[in-house]
């Protein structure tokens, strides 16, 4: 049986200290631009103490919480992917030194993507986001095309998860079986317990490294009552969950409804701005751009996040395959929750709700799926409904 320990709020800094002592750069939730954004942190004082948020389609509001807690908010505007899969990265650089067609003598030359990578300790990762990291692992670190930058950063990564005590307005992890309680994929997991006379964290380790750090920080074993209190908190969190999504045979549902009128409805509202994909913790698309300087002596290749909502994204000889917004929105949603399963064996959606909150016009993935399911022309049943199991 896994032993649970108690970390007092005032000794949370000793946990941070133990991680800094192991050469980790701490990153966690901070207040920025009236939102909870993930950035580098140094001490507990950098965390948003006494703050919460209200989220709905296209709306996010930071609010003073009536609880004096450190983790009383849902997913923020950024996802943790930016630390493992940086938004922009130099992949390659060459300097002309000798003749006009010779690259620099040391090849490959130094560049950001291959040099020493940062060692991050993420503080406060929620269960949905642990699942998102596992999804990106499949893309970048487990397939046949591995990404060396991601792999290096991922190998170093230390994760301190926090169980959710706050079901966000656009969250639907329960529908996606990804939360609200962290069950794996962390080094340490904390549940914040605030009672009349004490403010503590119930801590459990999920790895040997985690157990070692925990031993260094606390010797106070949790009581049965603490464990029950923590269970109550995470159970409560799952009660008010802003959204839900019925995923029954979702592949059959979408593959049989490419011509559903709901796609036109979505296309009329979708701005093709790409915000949904950028905030999504699993979206991994990127593009590579080549640059030269004016003097013609330096060439550089850079990678940056790209979005399937851009016209160029599907550009092949002769033009763009997805010229309409309808085709781009349909591609995005269908990939997220259906073709992703064929491709990677898991859903591309973990139910964090970010794409709903940060869509400037509040387009809601759960609502789109619900509308497609509810109003199907009669001949557009799912595969299981017509007695044909999809494999």
């Amino acid at each position, binding site marked *: 049986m896994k032993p649970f320990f108690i970390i007092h709020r005032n000794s949370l800094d000793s946990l941070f200290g133990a991680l800094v002592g192991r050469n980790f750069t701490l990153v966690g939730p901070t207040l920025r631009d009236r939102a909870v954004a993930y950035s580098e942190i140094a001490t507990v004082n950098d965390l948003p103490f006494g703050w919460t948020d209200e989220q709905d389609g296209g709306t*996010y509001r930071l609010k003073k919480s009536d609880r004096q807690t450190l983790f009383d908010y849902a997913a923020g505007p950024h996802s943790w992917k930016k630390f493992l899969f940086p938004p922009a990265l130099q992949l390659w650089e060459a300097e002309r030194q000798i003749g006009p067609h010779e690259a620099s003598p040391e090849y490959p030359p130094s560049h950001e993507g291959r040099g020493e990578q940062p060692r991050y300790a993420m503080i406060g990762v929620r269960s949905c986001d642990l699942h998102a990291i596992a999804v990106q692992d499949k893309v970048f670190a487990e397939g046949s095309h591995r990404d060396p930058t991601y792999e290096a950063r991922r190998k170093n990564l230390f994760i301190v998860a926090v169980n959710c005590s706050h079901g966000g307005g656009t969250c639907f992890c329960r529908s996606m079986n990804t939360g609200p309680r962290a069950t794996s994929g962390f080094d340490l997991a904390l549940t914040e317990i605030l009672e009349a006379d004490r403010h503590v964290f119930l801590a459990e380790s999920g790895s040997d490294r985690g157990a070692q750090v925990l031993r260094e920080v606390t010797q106070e074993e949790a009581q049965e009552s603490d464990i029950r209190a923590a269970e109550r908190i995470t159970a409560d969190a799952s009660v008010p969950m802003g959204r839900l999504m019925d995923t029954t045979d979702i592949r059959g549902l979408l593959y049989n409804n490419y011509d559903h009128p709901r796609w036109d409805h979505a296309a009329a509202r979708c701005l093709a*701005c790409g*915000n949904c994909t950028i905030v999504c913790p699993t979206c991994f698309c990127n593009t590579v751009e080549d640059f*030269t300087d004016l003097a013609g002596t330096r060439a550089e290749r850079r990678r940056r996040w790209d979005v399937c909502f851009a016209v160029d994204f599907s550009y092949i000889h002769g033009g763009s395959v997805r010229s309409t917004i309808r085709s781009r929105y349909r591609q995005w949603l269908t990939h997220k929750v259906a073709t992703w399963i064929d491709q990677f064996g898991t859903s591309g959606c973990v139910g964090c709700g970010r794409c709903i909150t940060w869509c400037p016009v509040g387009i809601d993935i759960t609502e789109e799926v619900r509308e497609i399911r509810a109003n199907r022309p009669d001949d557009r049943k799912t595969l299981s409904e017509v007695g044909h199991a999809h494999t």
Partner: protein
Amino acid sequence: MKKQKPKLAVWKFASCDGCQLSLLDCEDHLLAVADRVDIAYFPEATRAVVKGPYDLSLVEGSVTTPHDEERIHQVRRASRLLVTIGACATAGGIQGLRNFKDVKEFTTIVYASPQYIETLKKSTPISDHVRVDFELWGCPINKSQLLEVISAFLYRRKPNIPAHSVCIECKLRETVCVMVAHGTPCLGPVTHAGCGAICPSYHRGCYGCFGPKETPNTASLSSWLVRLGMKNDAILRVFRTFNANAEAFRKESQAHED
């Protein structure tokens, strides 16, 4: 054997000179440009004139007079590649506001002897008159983008000037969305990237200086702006600024006329 440097010309039509100044503003880079190209015609910077034809012509400004309507064809004939720079040249500029009114009325109010004013009814982009090889948007243009276009031209590669939304630039620099988090109206989702998303980083909404992005859905954004409390006349005004005459913005502002 020294290769001859390509000849660059910079032309001015109806404009404020701000975009040409972006080139002068490039400081150290300007020397690198001068090192690689022969600045053959650039009245803003030098009186020297080298006869055409020119390998690369940068055209600033819109067409507003019968004389310019002729002159742009001469420029086109003298140029191998023609790149328009700025909102005036690509969309008609702020002076495109005349397109919604009767310009005669203006001239009689503003000038003592309006009979000497020879002007067209509309301010139009260069691409309405001649073939344009590349358009660089912005009011003013972003000087790094200008250098990128020149460098791409010099080394025969595709310029990295994405036509996606300003939102992507906000997200890449990790600015929190001002519309979602603060309720501040913003044109970012329909506006062409290029400025680096400056205004939202100062908690202001995007003003649309870089014109419409590819496949802009202005009608949907407008319905959301209404939800944020904007009235019809305010929506008309946000779409009717430096790029008022760009098709998507023009149609959207017209949809909000009473």
